[in-house]
């Protein structure tokens, strides 16, 4: 692929390389810094005396007897019951991904195969719904949820997140299903399948790459959500992200920011693993709408 048009003069190549190195530092350093700092005590992580303390950790050595300490993790996971929030997050995320994919594949398939005008307008309505800030919707939920005693429970949050997820899921899956040739299911219908049988026996076996990619984004949306889960879940049912925000409110005064730091690292770790394994799908998902659009 290195055609003549690709060749760059040395100075330009050097400039671009330097820029990329700088960008790598900007993109990755905050995470490395926080990861390393989460094994220190607060006096080192926020060091008034010398920023090098956060790396060498003299106070950590003095307070705990070792250069690294797991005190922050112990405090967050055991003392402050972060494991419960993690469990809640797990329940919410798995349910949201499964339900929104089930709804989304059916809807996306229908939208991709319909030639009528209303299919187009449904997609436009979904786009407008996608643009609504979730918090504006939450202010509509609270009063009815209080009245009907739905507020605070995990299933409520799951249903709400599924709905907020739908517009995006529909858009993405519609564009994936458009790439599956129409002839495939139409020939099955010529052979006597009903529409649903064609979907079941012909489309489902070939749709998984698109579904997995969409599922990743549903996962991220549910996992990263703060606006909905913070306001709709009661304290016992909190998921991880609102729990961390809660740490900041209560424990900053107690001087235990390290709980928050260690739980931040705990929440970030699964995301790293996710990107590591599914980088290709994430990239293709991000570009799917754009390159064709």
């Amino acid at each position, binding site marked *: 692929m290195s055609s003549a048009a690709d060749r760059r003069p040395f100075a330009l190549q050097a400039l671009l390389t330097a820029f990329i190195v700088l960008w790598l530092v900007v993109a990755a350093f905050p995470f490395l*810094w926080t990861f390393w700092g989460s094994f220190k005590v607060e006096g080192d992580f926020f060091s008034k005396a010398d920023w090098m303390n956060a790396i060498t950790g003299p106070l950590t050595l003095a307070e705990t007897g070792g250069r690294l300490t797991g005190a922050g993790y112990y405090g967050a996971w055991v003392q402050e019951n972060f494991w419960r929030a993690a469990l809640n997050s797990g329940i919410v995320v798995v349910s949201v991904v499964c339900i929104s994919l089930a709804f989304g594949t059916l*809807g996306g398939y229908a939208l991709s195969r319909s030639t009528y005008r209303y299919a187009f307008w449904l997609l436009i309505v979904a786009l407008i719904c996608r643009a609504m800030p979730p918090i504006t919707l939450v202010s509509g939920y609270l009063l009815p949820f209080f009245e009907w005693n739905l507020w605070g429970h995990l299933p409520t949050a799951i*249903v709400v997140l599924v709905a907020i997820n739908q517009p995006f899921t529909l858009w993405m899956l519609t564009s994936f299903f458009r790439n599956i040739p129409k002839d495939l299911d139409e020939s099955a219908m010529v052979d006597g399948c009903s*529409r649903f049988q064609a979907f079941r026996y012909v489309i489902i076996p070939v749709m998984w790459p698109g579904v997995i990619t969409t599922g990743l984004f549903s996962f*991220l949306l549910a996992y990263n959500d*703060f606006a909905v889960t913070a306001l709709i879940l009661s304290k016992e049912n909190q998921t991880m992200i609102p729990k961390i925000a809660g740490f900041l409110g209560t424990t900053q005064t107690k001087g235990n920011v390290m709980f928050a730091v260690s739980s931040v690292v705990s929440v970030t770790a699964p995301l790293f693993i996710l990107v590591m394994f599914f980088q290709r799908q994430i990239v293709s998902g*991000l*570009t799917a709408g*754009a390159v064709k659009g």
Partner: protein
Amino acid sequence: MKHRTFIWFILPSALAMFVFIVMPIVSVLVQSVYAPHEQVVREVESCSVFGCTKSTQVDQEATKALRDAEPLGRFVGGDIYSDRNHLAVSEIAAAWRSSPRLGSFVQQVLNLPFYGALAFTLTYTALVTPLSLILGFVVALGVNAMPRLLRGGLIFVSLLPMIVTPLIGALILFWMVDARGILGSAIQYVVGDPSLSVKASTPLMWTMLIVYGVWSSAPFAFVVYYAGLQTVPQDTLESAMIDGANRWERIRYVVIPHLLPLTTFMALIKIMDNFRVFEPIVSFNAAAHAQSLSYFIYSDLGGETRLLSSAAATSMLTIVGVVILLSPVLMRTWRSFGRSAA
């Protein structure tokens, strides 16, 4: 596809969106024209040896009964929209009459909570959207110039700021710019002012929020531009070179036109996302210096007294804002669809 089959396929998804997106908007609209009931006050006469005195007292039972009977509250029409915390009609009129110059008028308007939040939200959207697109474009050019072997790792690292939870990404940055954190100390060292603190200064806080915004949304632009660069027509590039176009002209007349449709798509997505900026303000604890519309709603909804009506009014105004922002796109889609259908 037949109408009947279409309906069955789309039903679960459409129902979910109708009940949890369309209905809440209706609910917000209704709530925003009702205010909570005032307490029922009753006059009681208490007599003692020194004579009788009249006093007023809150009738708890009657208040509770009224609130249970009509949970929505009393109808107030557009009063909540025009009060001081929202459109502040009378305050603006007063400010207009009292201020001699335009500058002081603007100053007074921006001190009103709703307009302050609107100003920050719009500034954030207007700055973060183009800056993150530019940064993403340059990073894409850079990664594209690296050896093929390194690119996988580079993409991995570049995706991180976007994938990580917004609340958490912002927290990580916030801890670093804390006066006792590494970036905070670095800034103090560079400026030569050891008492400088991001938490205490409004301009610095705005800058940090915007830096966070660019940091977290550049990766999206990077990935899309990078994918776009892979599909730049090589033949056109080479023929442009044969025709004597230099490097800059090739970028200007071949690469950029090729990437332009991607840019409009991303600008649309990013404007929608940036307009709802919320989590970084929670993480940075920035409410004293910068509020966004979403944060404004959040602070009404959270807390001890849930100001549902006030939050609903702000939500309605935000929704109107979103529709105004989207209207050019909608108009264009409308027209292009009309053309393709005709």
